[in-house]
């Protein structure tokens, strides 16, 4: 067994699920720059000037937050590709059967997210396929393999603008 060494650059530190404390500068950095980064040759210098500090400190903070897994990156968020068809599906599964049925659902390559929710509809998953015909085929197969009916709840309209969310939530 090898111990975690902070000197190995490609070794990602284990993700912690404990709350990581942030100071005021770090909070401002995260709140104000989730939705946009200056598109100038020197974005970190610009941020430093806007926050009244040095570029070196901004880079040091971002590196630390990235190394500890608080941020996944400083970079692009892509719009989900509109190609293909997808839906949100829900099933109502007896508690004793949930893990077994969830495994069957997760094994479908068309399923990307699959999670439990506290409700009579306790299994929720997103299904995607290249076109609506193949999506329907996957939904039918999901019902057959699990033996449970599903609710097919495709998105009809989107109202939010995704800008991340502030740390006062």
């Amino acid at each position, binding site marked *: 067994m090898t111990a975690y060494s902070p000197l190995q650059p490609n070794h990602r530190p284990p993700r912690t699920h404990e709350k990581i404390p942030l100071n005021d500068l770090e909070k401002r950095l995260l709140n104000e720059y989730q939705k946009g980064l200056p598109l100038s040759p020197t974005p970190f210098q610009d941020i430093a000037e806007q926050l009244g500090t040095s570029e070196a400190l901004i880079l040091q903070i971002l590196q630390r937050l990235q190394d500890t897994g608080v941020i996944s990156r400083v*970079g692009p968020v892509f719009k989900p590709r509109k190609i293909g068809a997808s839906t949100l599906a829900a099933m109502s599964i007896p508690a004793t059967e949930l893990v077994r049925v969830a495994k069957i659902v997760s094994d479908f390559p068309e399923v990307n997210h699959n999670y439990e*929710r*506290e409700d009579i509809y306790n299994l929720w998953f997103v299904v995607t396929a290249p076109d609506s015909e193949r999506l329907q085929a996957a939904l039918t197969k999901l019902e057959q393999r699990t033996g449970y009916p599903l609710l097919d709840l495709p998105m*009809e309209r989107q109202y*939010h603008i995704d800008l991340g969310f502030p740390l006062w*939530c």
Partner: protein
Amino acid sequence: MVLNKQDCQLIAQIQDGLPLTSRPYGEVGRRIGLSEDQVIHRVKALQAAGIIKRMGVVVRHHELGYTANAMVVWDVPDHQVDEVGARLGARDCVTLCYRRPRRLPDWPYNLFCMIHGRRRERVLEYIDQLVITEQLGEVPRKVLFSGRRFKQRGARYQ
């Protein structure tokens, strides 16, 4: 917008993050044979075309203790759903807001929104506030907190 080879190279270089250096776009340009100006210009074009939604600090809220995740579903009269959806979608702590079809008689809810918080009680308080400020007291609703994650495949571009 049709992506050319250089756009694909650019996306491949930046999708895991910009280099944390003084001149990140210049550094990315050096790797793929573009000038700093050309990189900035292409990033702006990808943003204008809607392929890149935003450039920014991508926070892993889970790591900061945002582990309470509630899906709130509402049964809004059809003639009001777009207006209510737009108002809820604009609220700061609402991260997703969609209209979806009802499936009667099992599922009467047509508006879905997602709310994140550090603690369940805080999320419930926030929902209570939403109901008051957005005058949704008469609208039937249900709150579904998330439990175990059985599968989560991160979205990558290519």
